[in-house]
């Protein structure tokens, strides 16, 4: 790249360090002499993408292979994009500053529906054909994975193949296949054909979809007999035998998280009925203490960080959490290293562990009851009782915490006014518990923040068939809560329902939704997950222009026997199980944590049951 031009634009943009790379532990290989060039694209700004663990894993895994390289791309902030377009600079990698279209395979991670317009924008900025069908044998292959790949259909016009499941099992294999086929008679078609024979790979162009007159799906027709009727997800069976993430790229600028991160386990057994991650990441597979300890040791010494984050979907479920925390505290007692545990549950285990790790700062803590009333918590199978909530708060206050943040969802299935009142009630309980103590025990400046997001029905959850509330309904619910709060100690925050409805539209979208995403992109939508950029009217126009409607996606109850757009994917959880969970939720019947007995979700040879028995 022209250095003078590059520096000139960097002098004119906010946070130019987003675009320079060269961070500690980043890897710059000989671009022209490496066989397979993989472009990892995160469709959001640098600070967000750099906090993503999956990227770090794939980055080091791929670069670990001698004949492969992995370089990073993030969505440039709008000021940078404008300068790049003005100066005709294509989207370039942070490592060798090479343009996106010079890579063999472009890998996108799908974390969030509202980043989809950024995907199209990045391809466009990188000089890559947006539509899969227009790409030639000389163009890169565009692949996508991550949680949202479980409903790949809205992006099927743009993505050549989807990776379903855990990338570390498939990615390198896919790149090897590419290297093997990349010779004189290479064609895209041949590569896609061979790739589609691999487990966990979905090539949308090899399937045709027919629709009924009422706009629902009539059938999926595969083009070749050998193709699976449903693409099975692939996952790491033994979590003690994966790639050891001993290193992390250390950004220069403040990112969301700047700390060492080690996963305790994958999967979750809680069975919350709204949570897609709780279903698609099954079964639970734990990592043993020794491996976790070694990884944190190496990461700390390679990065210079002084915080360890132990990550998972529900950290207190790790069977040896107490022992692990003791070991880590003991190891790091001298170097002021902090340990943090995201995703804590509302129960006594959490407070015991918290006592150990939060020695210094005792300010804010976040809990997620998700729903205000017991009835609603039973419907969504969030198994926390009000008593547990009270006990947890009591012991937190006793330990010195004074600022509590509570997460809830509104717009949940079968919701009534009394369920919303329950949210306010939990805030009031917190206040009472804090102040109803002897004066000498009250420390700190109390506040409780009630934060509500709007429920979005997601694929592969028991609520995948449910109707989503309209914007008006959600707005009314927000006011219902807001109007009840007139206490300075109780703060109410809420998410914009408009974003949630667009998210819901895309989340359960079929292939026709691709046109909507394209229209929105053409109308200038980008960074839709950022409130300052999200424009609802743009999306309404995009939907109208493609002849689709919210009614057909968000605001109807889907039929149990209709073909769902994401039925082409097999997450190994059976549909029967999801149906039975839906039935139970109607009657507010809970399902026990499957550690205490198998619930028959459909996973065969469940690793957890082999190990935990």
């Amino acid at each position, binding site marked *: 790249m022209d250095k003078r031009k590059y520096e000139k634009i960097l002098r004119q943009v906010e946070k130019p*360090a987003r675009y320079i790379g060269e961070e*500690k532990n980043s890897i710059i290989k000989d671009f022209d002499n490496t066989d397979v060039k993989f472009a990892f694209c995160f469709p959001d700004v640098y600070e967000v993408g750099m906090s993503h663990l999956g990227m770090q894993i794939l980055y080091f895994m791929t670069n670990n292979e001698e004949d492969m390289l992995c370089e990073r791309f993030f969505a440039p902030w709008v000021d940078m994009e404008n300068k790049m377009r003005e100066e005709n600079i294509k989207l370039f990698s942070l490592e060798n500053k090479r343009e996106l279209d010079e890579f063999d395979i472009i890998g996108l991670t799908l974390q969030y529906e509202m980043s989809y317009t950024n995907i199209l924008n990045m391809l466009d900025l990188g000089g890559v054909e947006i539509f899969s069908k227009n790409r030639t044998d000389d163009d890169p292959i565009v692949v996508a994975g991550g949680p949202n790949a479980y409903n790949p259909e809205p992006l099927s016009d743009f993505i050549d193949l989807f990776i379903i499941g855990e990338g570390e099992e498939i990615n390198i294999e896919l790149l090897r296949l590419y290297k093997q086929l990349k010779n004189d008679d290479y064609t895209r078609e041949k590569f896609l054909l061979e790739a589609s024979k691999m487990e966990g790979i979905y090539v949308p162009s090899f399937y045709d979809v027919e629709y009924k007159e009422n706009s629902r799906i009539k059938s999926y027709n595969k083009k070749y007999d050998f193709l699976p009727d449903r693409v099975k997800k692939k996952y790491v069976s033994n979590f003690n035998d994966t790639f050891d993430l001993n290193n992390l790229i250390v950004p220069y600028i403040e990112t969301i998280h700047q700390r060492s991160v080690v996963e305790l386990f994958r999967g979750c057994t809680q069975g919350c009925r709204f949570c897609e991650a709780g279903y698609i990441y099954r079964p639970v597979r734990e990592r043993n203490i020794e491996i976790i300890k070694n990884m944190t040791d190496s990461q700390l010494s390679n990065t210079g*960080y002084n915080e360890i984050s132990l990550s998972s979907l529900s950290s207190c479920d790790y069977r040896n959490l107490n022992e692990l925390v003791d070991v880590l505290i003991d190891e790091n007692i001298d170097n002021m290293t902090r340990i943090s545990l995201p995703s804590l549950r509302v129960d006594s285990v959490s407070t015991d562990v918290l006592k150990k790790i939060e020695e210094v700062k005792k300010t804010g803590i976040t809990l997620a009851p998700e729903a205000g009333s017991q009835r609603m918590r039973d419907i969504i199978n969030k198994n926390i009782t009000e008593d547990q909530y009270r006990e947890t708060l009591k012991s937190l206050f006793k330990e010195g915490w004074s600022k509590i943040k509570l997460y809830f969802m509104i717009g949940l299935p079968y919701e009534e006014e009394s369920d919303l009142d329950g949210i306010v009630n939990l805030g009031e309980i917190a206040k009472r518990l804090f102040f109803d103590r002897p004066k000498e025990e009250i420390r700190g400046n109390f506040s409780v923040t009630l934060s509500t997001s709007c429920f979005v029905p997601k694929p592969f959850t028991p609520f995948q068939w449910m109707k989503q509330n309209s914007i008006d309904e959600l707005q009314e619910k927000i006011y219902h809560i807001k109007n009840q709060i007139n206490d300075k100690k109780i703060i109410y925050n809420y998410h914009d329902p408009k974003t949630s409805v667009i998210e819901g539209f895309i989340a359960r979208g079929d292939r026709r939704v691709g046109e909507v995403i394209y229209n929105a992109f053409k109308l200038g939508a980008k960074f839709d997950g950022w409130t300052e950029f999200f424009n609802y009217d743009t999306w309404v126009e995009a939907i109208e222009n493609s002849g689709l409607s919210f009614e057909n996606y968000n605001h109807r109850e889907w039929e149990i026997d209709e073909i769902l757009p994401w039925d082409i994917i097999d997450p190994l959880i059976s549909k029967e199980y999801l149906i039975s969970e839906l039935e139970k939720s109607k009657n507010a019947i809970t399902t026990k944590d499957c550690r205490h007995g198998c619930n028959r979700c459909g996973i065969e040879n469940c690793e957890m049951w082999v190990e935990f028995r």
Partner: protein
Amino acid sequence: MKLRVYYKRNGNLKFISHLNTIDLLQRTVFSTPYKVAFSEGFNPHPLMSFGNPLPLGVSSDFEVFDVEFIDDIDIEDFVNKANLYLPDEVKIFEAFEITSNDSISKAFTHNLYEFRIFTDINLDEIDINTENLLINRKKKKKKREEIITEDISKNVEILSGITKVSEDEYILVAKLENSTDKIINPLNFINGIFNKYKLNISIFDVEIHKKEMISEL
């Protein structure tokens, strides 16, 4: 033991902010086996102090920070280990012990800057001087920002006038005050020069490099 450390920050690392640089240097010091002293109090912080911030995008062969260690340390070993942690474009080139009340701001009075100007305008003929050199700078006044104009001719000196290095590239070297009384921002200075000589050149077409910090006391 208190140490004064000189380092450079060049290449693309000139695009990281002052705060980012502080973070980087703190991580660097922590990566060495030598224990940094912390302040007392409720929220202890490492005892490190830094020279005046460099504007974003300005590279430098001469930056400075002070750091206090609990014990006496092997300075050479510290420098070697710190340089192992640091990226190629940021390196320590000198470190020495100072007494505990030496402060960075009193140690230097001027910065030497090199301005590399890219333009199609022919600057060869211009004989630059700093007489009545005016700059505009932003000043915060009770939350409001206003632009004030001031004469900085006493605070700056041209060391080497505009010299052509290639078809569209010129170099100017100047000494700008950087003392406890006055700090001249190199961007304001070069903008002032462009205004004085009515040169229609964008500030973004100038590469600024700090060569040295000196004391004229």
